[in-house]
């Protein structure tokens, strides 16, 4: 027996560790994986396998080389190699689930390799990345191989367009999106990316993460809430039905991005007010891209754009732990101005 001296505190919170947090995300994603395979068959399985394996393998080889350069021996428990805490597996899964079902596997692999290398490894590995890895990989694929992103339409094989794609083409025409609420909510038979179609399963995953306290629930709530309020404003000023905000919330990658991508703690601000500003910014950017952008999908771009603002939101001169009266009043003013501007903007642009 020997005595060891340590600095206080001498206790640590039980059940709080990175492995648990990341494993929870993987568990929350698993129904989506099963659903994707059920919907799209083996091609979905192959895409997910390739996306995960490409990311894990890139990281593995990278740390092999780094360790060799440092003259160390490689071990599985190496702190930098993050397979043991699921972080790279989760990134790979999320990336795979954002992809369309008809994408060539080569493109999936290239996106995964470039994504994990450029967005994570060269920044210094886990905890150091500025950009959401999955969002970065997905955007890389969109911008580089845009024409390869074809969707299979189960309802009408000729159309091949997602609900949001239709909405983007013909913004205020109700008949353009005739998928129906149940199809949009359950995702059964809905064309779209592998994991983004089933709102039901995404919400179930979010509920699980919330109950396990493995994500900050205020981020998805604010994000989806912002998009909903902005589309409500458009609904009232343009005199369209409730299908319009409902489509905005349920269609595309909004729910998936809000629950699984915007909540990645590494790439979002650290304070609660900061996280709410961040999620509000996400909502506004997503909505603007959806309305006026060239591409139907704004979520991943919004996440990458807001990732860049994280150091500014967290800046020590103004970041506060709690909402102060000053913060609340400025933020409320910004929210009101944004809603008014959106309504006016849609009126003139639409």
């Amino acid at each position, binding site marked *: *027996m*020997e*005595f*060891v*001296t*340590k*600095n*206080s*505190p*001498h*206790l*640590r*919170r*039980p*059940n*709080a*560790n*990175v492995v*648990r*947090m990341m494993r929870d995300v993987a568990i929350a994603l698993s129904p989506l994986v099963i659903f994707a395979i059920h919907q799209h068959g083996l091609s979905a399985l192959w895409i997910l396998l390739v996306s995960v394996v490409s990311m894990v393998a890139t990281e593995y080889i990278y740390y092999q080389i780094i360790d060799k350069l440092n003259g160390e021996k490689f071990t599985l428990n190496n*702190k930098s190699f993050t397979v043991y*805490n699921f972080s790279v597996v989760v990134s790979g899964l999320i990336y795979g689930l954002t992809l369309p079902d008809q994408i060539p596997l080569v493109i999936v692999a290239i996106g995964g390799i470039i994504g994990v290398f450029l967005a994570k490894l060269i920044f210094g*590995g*886990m*905890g*150091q990345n500025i950009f959401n890895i999955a969002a970065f990989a997905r955007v890389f694929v969109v911008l580089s191989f845009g024409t390869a992103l074809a969707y299979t339409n189960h309802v009408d094989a000729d159309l091949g367009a997602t609900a949001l794609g239709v909405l983007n083409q013909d913004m205020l025409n109700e008949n353009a999106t005739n998928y129906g609420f149940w199809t949009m909510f359950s995702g059964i038979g809905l064309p779209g990316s592998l994991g983004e179609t089933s709102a039901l399963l995404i919400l179930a995953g979010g509920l699980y993460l919330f109950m*396990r*306290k*493995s*994500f*900050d629930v205020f981020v998805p709530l604010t994000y989806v809430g912002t998009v909903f309020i902005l589309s409500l404003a458009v609904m009232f000023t343009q005199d369209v039905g409730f299908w319009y905000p409902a489509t905005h919330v349920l269609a595309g990658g909004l729910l998936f991005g809000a629950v699984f991508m915007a909540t990645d*703690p*590494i790439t*979002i601000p*650290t*304070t*609660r007010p900061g*996280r709410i500003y961040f999620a509000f910014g996400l909502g506004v950017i997503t909505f603007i891209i959806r309305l006026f952008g060239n591409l139907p999908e704004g979520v991943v771009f919004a996440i990458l754009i807001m990732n860049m603002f994280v150091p500014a939101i*967290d800046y*020590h*001169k103004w*970041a*506060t*732990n*709690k909402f102060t009266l000053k913060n609340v009043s400025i933020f409320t003013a910004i929210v009101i101005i944004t809603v008014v501007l959106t309504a006016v903007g849609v009126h003139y642009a639409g």
Partner: protein
Amino acid sequence: MISKARKVSDYRQLTKELPTLRYVDPERVYINLQSDRCKTYTLDVKEGDKVKLGQVIGERDGGFFKQPIYSTISGEVEGLTKKLHPTGIEVDCVTIRNDFKDEYHESVTDRPESVIDKMTKEEMVDVIRHAATVGLGGSGFPSYIKLDTDKEIHTVVINAVECEPYLSSDYRLIKDSPEEIFYGLKYIMQALKAEKGVIAVKKTKTELIDVLERELKRFPHMNIEIAKLADYYPQGWENEMFENALGIKIPSGVLPMEYGVIGFNVSTASAIYEALKHNLPIIKRHLTVNGDAINFPQNIRVRVGTSIKDLIRLSDGYREDAEKIDLVIGGPMMGTSVEHDDVVVTPTTTSVLVLESQDFHEEPCVRCGSCIYSCPVDIQPVNIMNAIKRNDTKALENLEVGKCIECGLCAYVCTSKIHLTDYMRKGKKLLG
């Protein structure tokens, strides 16, 4: 886990309902001549001298105050040794061999209640200074300086919250001798001419509330109330306690006396009672021996100056299969771990924790924000850590690292098991 966490998990072997064991007659006591506040001292006795209980044997010098050193037993002086102080520093101690007679020194005389009733603040402060009473919650700050405030005090709060897990010494003190606390509070209120007294206690400790309410009936003419506070950490932090018990929010860096309130620990109140009533310094105190690597956790009433080695032996020693032991003096959240068990019990020693040392696997920070959500003083531990890593003193100033009370919650809640509290200490040092 991303969440605010202020509940610190308590130890499964709760000692609070265990009876208090008495161990007041050790073979030898070791009176520390230096302490963390007092570096120099004078010693008036030499080897072979006979001393009595309560006799002044020297004086510690703490710069802005001087403090008499008392013998806590009667017996024979055996010379100087080096022992560890509970704060982990090595100090000179004088050894006194017990003659088991407990002969009181002539200066130890009881003061009748009628005399105390007529005492002025100055007289009381003088008695308390002479009795070397210090803040027994762990600060060790001389109580007479606190009591000698020239601010007008309207409320005296007795801190019986004891929010650190594993500890039960204050709990046992209140259960064993609640009247001392009420008398102590009464004297403090008399000295400060305060109209109101509050005893703050956790609402989950229902048995204590029962004891205190029963005792309160004996003081019907006094304006004392019992504040039942929520059970979370760090409820026992003075400012948190004032806010929840009185609704007064005291900003960091301001003394509570500015707001007309003053706080004393329960043990301090009891020590003030001993000093005024019996003219006695602190010679005995309640102490908890607890932890997962001790065979027999218990509460002990000990003589000040006892070696902790004796107490460990009394608790059946260390668990045999424990390889590495983290011996903590104080609570598990803020206590100091010491190099070996040759430590002397001082008046401020609340507990001895024998913990099996665990190596926490530190992972890269995932910026989950739990430390920010949990911080009781609303600073941002994770951002302070990053500022320290890039040596950014300007950011450290803006992040107000100086507000940190080192309660240990940030390191406790950390998902990645990073020792954030150490970073906070480093940050404070960087700012000077």
